[in-house]
């Protein structure tokens, strides 16, 4: 199984490169801090403390998960092409699809592991603080599953950039720009349009769809309880939820497939 062999060596490299360690520290640290700091005042109001924790972790994950996904993937094709290992690998009896899939599996495992450890810490700390009675674990599981989907989407985008850029240096620059656009500039642009529109047709019809079309926003919407203050804190208001759960889920599921397919198509055209 070439795919498994690729995944295995990539996992080994990720471990040696401290990628596993770095993403673990990032996710673990932030999850713990947010759980401990965020839950305290509201916990007494009778809202599920786990829901409070996942809400603040969601806000952070919107930035962190795409970043980790892109950092894990930008070197995958361009780096190997530069080092000459891609040409050598392609003289072995395996297809480019198998190489891409193997790398994807490995990187998704690294990302999933980091998120899982972070969320496990969140659950543990919440139980330690408030006891295990009447905690609803569903938001936690939803956060985990959607984090994987979000991570997968940005892994795919990273491979696509890596295949198109052909040089690691160029690829690393582009992923940072793409990250900025997806998690910051896109929302700012929409916010500007909202303000300019002043609650007109754009706000009611086009805006919800534009918002959900961005996987990072779809991730945020799907994990934010509709009626919490936190939704308003994102600055995009309740209008964002107008698209509903279905399109949000569809966005999170389609993006990984789309990004990986495009990455594969671009990879097939790379001459090592």
């Amino acid at each position, binding site marked *: 199984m070439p795919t498994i062999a690729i995944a295995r060596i990539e996992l080994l490299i990720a471990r040696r490169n401290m990628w596993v360690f770095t993403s673990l520290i990032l996710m673990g640290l932030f999850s713990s801090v947010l759980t401990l700091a965020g839950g305290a005042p509201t916990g007494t109001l009778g809202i599920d403390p786990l829901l409070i924790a996942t809400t603040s972790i969601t806000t952070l994950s919107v930035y962190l998960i795409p970043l980790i996904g892109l950092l894990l993937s930008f070197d995958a094709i361009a780096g190997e092409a530069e080092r000459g*290992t891609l040409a050598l690998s392609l003289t072995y*009896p395996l297809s480019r699809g198998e190489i891409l899939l193997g790398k994807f599996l490995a990187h998704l495992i690294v990302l999933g592991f980091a998120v899982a450890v972070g969320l496990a810490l969140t659950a543990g700390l919440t139980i330690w603080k408030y006891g295990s009675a009447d905690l609803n674990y569903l938001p936690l599981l939803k956060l985990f599953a959607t984090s994987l989907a979000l991570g997968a989407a940005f892994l795919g985008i990273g491979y696509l950039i890596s295949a198109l850029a052909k040089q690691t240096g160029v690829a690393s620059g582009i992923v940072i720009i793409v990250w900025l656009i997806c998690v910051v500039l896109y929302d700012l642009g929409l916010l500007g349009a909202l303000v300019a529109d002043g609650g007109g047709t754009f706000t009611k019809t086009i805006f919800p769809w534009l918002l959900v079309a961005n996987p990072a926003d779809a991730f945020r919407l799907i994990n934010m309880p509709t009626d919490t203050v936190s939704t308003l804190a994102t600055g995009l208001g309740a209008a964002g939820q107008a698209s509903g759960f279905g399109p949000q889920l569809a966005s999170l599921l389609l993006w990984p497939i789309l990004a990986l397919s495009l990455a594969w198509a671009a990879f097939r055209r790379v001459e090592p």
Partner: protein
Amino acid sequence: MTVLGIENVSKSYGDVHSVRDVSLNLGEGERVALLGHNGAGKTTLMRMVLGLTPLTSGKISVLGMPPGSRKARTAIGFLPESVAFHGALTGREQLHHFARLKGVKRSVADDLLERVGLTHAMNRKIRTYSKGMRQRIGLAQALLGQPRLALLDEPTSGLDPISRHEFYDIVDDLSKGGTAVLLSSHALTELESRTDRIAIMSKGHLLANDSLSALREAARLPIQVSVKATPETADDVAAKLGGTRVNGASVSLEVQQEGKVSLLGQITGLGELVKDIDVTPASLEELYRHYSVPKQEGK
């Protein structure tokens, strides 16, 4: 049986004609050295055989299969001219990875590490390897799974003289096992007795493709004969043999193969006048220069 068949193959990158109308065949167990100046098209030719780059025109078959097909790739072992393995892996991990890709047992990979003399360093990170040690990892992976065709691009670059010798022993073993070996090299002297055929490329053209002795015969490069006399007799000897005096006491002559024996007879006929004789056939270096200067340039 033909292991590698290259028929009228050309390759252009835009208006750079890297390979022009090259035809070359390799049979089982044949060892062929591909020579040529920098940019002659050796690497490009190998990349086409591997299916890494498409042909502009012509046809290549590896055991009857198109280049780049899964079966063709299973049958080939390839050593690239420059490859940087991931420094974070140990030599053993890297080779085991390639063994998995080729569906070869890991114990075979360990044996190959021994064969290329890396056992002592196999558990160290490749980052800490010397150039020659990296080259050996590359060689070891090319040998995995007993390939039917070995493509070795400058395999001895970075190897010390003893390692080069050991490398050609490995090539001999491959060839005895029926593997066809195509290797490119810039180090000519080491090829003398170690290859069955020499193919010379220049500016994309294949200018020669034959055994060393046949190339020697066809080139008709003169044999150098040096006769040692004394400072007093050197002029006399030079006059009698028709050579030129060099270094005060020696006479230098050039002769074709068919005139060699009679010239030697003539020299021995001079008796006491001659102190020593040196006979040097055209070196591979001269032969290479003879063939690699394109005829159309009139040199």
